[in-house]
């Protein structure tokens, strides 16, 4: 597994400093891509505002890349830890790039479209401030050589929240630059110009007008405004806050959209790679064997830790791999039970990640009355339906790759290191992704394709099969949560939450940083106690080192930690004899956060007619959570059918601040709830003899339409800024269902997947 995605902070910082210290820096790799090769006018400038501005004229338009502030890498990381929302701009280059041409405006972004609708949302934001007609701007994932460095990648529900203001400012700056240039060309004072639908015109005489394409034509130098341009008032928004249709659906539904698995190139070949049975196995030896004489096999590549086959078809490549003589030093003996035993909270162990008041003291003082419960979740697999895929083409010391990845720059760096190539010679383009969910953040499949391409000089596609996807990736780690609390009447006096979890984020950071962090912020995501009306709260995060790979998953620890905390809140409400909704409402302070929690809880309860009459044999459960500052509350309505839990309805209220696209946000909530329900009912990865025991969907079934409940989603807007929506809806579902099951049956189920006692 890659352990190096953040390793280049120092190098990047010094490059950035070099750029900043010079007024004009010619010929950066960023500008070459868009500039006319004959043009001498291309230049980079540093404006007073600290924007890095690249201007290049291609003959058909202008390109403008603006830097979103200059945060220090460490500061950005600290911010990410602080609010659990990763910034898009951990590294230092421009992160957006506009091109205005005769065909319209293109916004190049390093952010990828994996189903979450981010290209639509970014288009809404950019079109808004650029005053463009909806169809006149498109958002595309830019190749890495275009230079929009983004070491973080796409994830953490952070794209829209981190880019909202910077992208607006960038677009507004560009709009003002276009206006200024139009003023010159039209001989009209800039103050007398208006902009509508991509046309700049004189307010007094609308026949004096220029389209953006006409404005940029022939212009070689631009003036950057000295002060920040005015941003539109929220009441004037045409696109933001509206349920705009997704820009990618027509291509996706007609089969034109290209995903990593679909990429093809003239003369391409197919690759497959030898793999061991057990995790942690190392290659002892490998020999070509009969592989080279197999029909369709073009070449065999063997190094000290890699054996792969290139062939004219996927089937031939896999057959070739089967007859390689590879000897592995296999591991054995490790089982699910071992994983669970390792993943066990040791009382008081772990790093304190939240301390309000003095929970240990309060619990000790009232030790006879401590209520305690423990919860578990198993390993799970991401199960995005498009397995890992990459097409790579090595030509000399240059490499092009098209990859289904959430993090093209991480893949680029991984490729450069594995192949010994210069980074600027590696161009990675992120395709459409057939799901991401945190599983597409390593360069592994791209490296495999690149090694095989280098040997043959041909483009080589490597697409994993389902078994490879399940066995050779990384899993959601197992978790063990222990909660303790004391009640004073119907109020919680103190509460403590101890989390033991396998790694989530740590495998993707260098070892020294994990020591700095102390606790894996991915593992404790969602574990801190958000009931700010409780005086004494403590949360501890205990790192569990496991012998198999674990990592990112949609919502990170949110699903497991909220399942535990919100089930426990239900247990406490029962112990106090208070309605579960009332009990929650009473444990928030008169704070802004508390107000927002009350908002979503009240809304979800109202949607579900909480406490109203239900069909015979039905019951409701409620839960809430916070993630990336988005508050979510859900009410589940369940019954028991044929001895099994059936979920009939989920009512979900979500407060993500300003909602950019209400329909897109609702879709994310619906999808997150379904994905959670799949974990609630089905998903569990077993390990036996150091081998992952799932091979395909027959041993790892997912939820289907048959078990999908009615899902109602309502947004509770609460401010001028957007927060993430991709992961937060994963929070409350499991607890809401478990709490409903308790209300119905009296059985308190504390382990996922939920199984009724006989």
């Amino acid at each position, binding site marked *: 597994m890659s352990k190096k995605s953040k390793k280049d902070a120092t190098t990047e910082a010094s490059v950035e400093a070099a750029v900043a210290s010079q007024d004009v820096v010619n010929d950066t790799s960023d500008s070459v891509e868009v500039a006319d090769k004959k043009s001498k006018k291309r230049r980079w400038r540093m404006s007073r505002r600290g924007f890095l501005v690249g201007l290049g004229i291609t003959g058909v338009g202008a390109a403008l890349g603006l830097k979103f502030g200059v945060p220090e890498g460490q500061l950005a990381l600290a911010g990410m830890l602080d609010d659990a929302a990763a910034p898009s701009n951990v590294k230092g280059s421009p992160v957006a790039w506009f091109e205005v041409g005769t065909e319209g405006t293109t916004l190049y972004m390093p952010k990828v479209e*994996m*189903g*979450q*609708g981010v290209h639509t949302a970014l288009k809404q934001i950019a079109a808004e401030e650029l005053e463009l007609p909806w169809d006149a701007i498109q958002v595309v994932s830019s190749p890495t050589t275009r230079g929009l460095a983004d070491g973080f990648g796409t994830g953490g529900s952070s794209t829209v929240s981190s880019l909202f203001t910077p992208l607006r400012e960038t677009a507004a700056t560009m709009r003002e630059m276009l206006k200024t240039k139009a003023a010159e060309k039209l001989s009209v004072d800039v103050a007398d110009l208006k902009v509508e639908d991509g046309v700049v015109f004189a307010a007094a005489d609308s026949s004096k007008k220029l389209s953006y394409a006409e404005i940029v034509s022939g212009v070689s130098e631009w003036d950057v405004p000295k002060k920040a341009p005015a941003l539109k008032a929220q009441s004037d928004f045409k696109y933001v806050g509206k349920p705009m*249709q*997704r820009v*990618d*659906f*027509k291509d*996706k*539904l*007609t*089969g*034109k*959209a*290209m*995903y990593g*698995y*679909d990429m*093809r190139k003239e003369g391409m070949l*197919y690759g497959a790679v030898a793999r061991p049975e057990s995790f942690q196995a190392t290659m002892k030896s490998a020999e070509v064997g009969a592989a080279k004489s197999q029909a369709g096999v073009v070449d065999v590549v063997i190094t000290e830790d890699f054996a792969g086959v290139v062939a004219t*078809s*996927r*089937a031939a490549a896999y057959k070739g791999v089967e007859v390689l003589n590879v000897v592995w030093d296999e591991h054995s003996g490790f089982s699910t039970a071992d994983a669970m035993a390792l993943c066990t909270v040791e009382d008081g162990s772990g790093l304190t990640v939240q301390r309000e008041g003095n929970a240990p003291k309060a619990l000790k003082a009232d030790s006879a009355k401590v209520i305690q419960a423990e919860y578990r979740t198993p390993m799970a697999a991401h*199960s*995005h*339906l*498009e*397995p890992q895929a990459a097409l790579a083409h090595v030509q000399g010391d240059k490499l092009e790759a098209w990859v289904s990845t959430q993090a093209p720059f991480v893949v680029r760096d991984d490729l450069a290191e594995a192949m010994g190539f210069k980074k600027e010679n590696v161009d990675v383009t992120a395709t*459409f*992704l*057939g*799901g*991401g*969910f945190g599983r597409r953040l390593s360069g592994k499949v791209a490296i495999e394709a690149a090694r095989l391409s280098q040997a043959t000089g041909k483009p080589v596609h490597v*697409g994993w*099969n*389902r078994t490879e996807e399940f066995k050779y990736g990384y899993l959601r780690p197992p978790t063990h949560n222990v909660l303790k609390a004391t009640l004073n009447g119907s109020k919680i006096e103190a509460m403590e939450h101890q989390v033991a979890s396998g790694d989530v984020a740590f495998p993707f950071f260098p070892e020294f940083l994990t020591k700095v962090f102390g606790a894996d912020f991915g593992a404790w995501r969602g574990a801190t106690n958000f009931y700010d009306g409780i005086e004494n709260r403590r949360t501890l995060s205990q790192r569990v080192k496991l012998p198999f790979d674990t990592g990112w998953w949609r919502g990170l620890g949110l699903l497991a930690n909220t399942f535990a905390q919100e089930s426990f809140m239900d247990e406490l409400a029962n112990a106090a004899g208070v309605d579960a909704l009332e009990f929650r409402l009473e444990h928030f302070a008169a704070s802004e956060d508390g107000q927002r929690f009350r908002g979503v809880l009240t809304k979800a309860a109202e949607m579900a007619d909480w406490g109203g009459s239900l069909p015979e044999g039905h019951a409701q459960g409620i839960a809430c959570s916070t993630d990336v500052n988005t508050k979510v509350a859900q009410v589940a309505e369940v019954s028991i059918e044929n001895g099994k839990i059936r979920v009939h309805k989920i009512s979900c209220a979500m407060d993500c601040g300003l909602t950019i696209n209400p*329909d*897109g946000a609702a*879709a*994310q909530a*619906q*999808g*997150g*709830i*379904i*994905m959670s329900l*799949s974990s609630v009912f089905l998903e569990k990865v077993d390990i036996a003899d150091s081998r992952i025991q799932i091979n*395909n*969907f*027959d041993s790892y079934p*997912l*939820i*289907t*339409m*048959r078990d*999908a409940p*009615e*899902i109602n989603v309502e947004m509770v807007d609460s401010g001028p800024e957007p927060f993430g929506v991709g992961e937060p809806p994963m929070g409350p579902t499991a607890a809401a269902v478990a709490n409903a099951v308790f209300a119905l049956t009296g059985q308190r189920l504390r382990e996922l997947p939920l199984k009724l006692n006989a």
Partner: protein
Amino acid sequence: MNLTINQQDFSVSDEDTTRPLLWVLRDELGLSATKFGCGAGICGSCSVQVDGVTMRSCVTPLVAVEGKSIRTVEGLATENEVGEEVLHPVQEAFIKHQVPQCAWCMSGQMMTALSLIEKNNDPSEEEIVNAMSNNYCRCGCYVRIKTAVKEAATLMQEQEA
């Protein structure tokens, strides 16, 4: 070997006639709308129509489809007199209800829905659930798929009328 796909004739190698239709479509003919998800006929991403019946192309040997009419998502939309693309009612309904997210499974969902509606253009909710519950959608678009399939049936009824 000759194959009829979306009413067009294709000639493919008859070297190994047991090879799955999926990879012939995708890798040999460049018809990549049909997706790979599991290779075991479970997830439904690779669903195509063969003589109007939904088949899992990842486990359908080539020899089984010789001389039959194969339909994939590439064959859903048509062209009008002026050469513009006209979406199939199933595609229209899936766009109207903004169904997909990543959309990797959507070709299979649409081809499965099409077979259902062609047999029964007024399916009940239960019939839709029965027909569609063998197709996975990891993004969790089931609620919208259900609505869109009902809508597609209505659109197709109107078209027939």
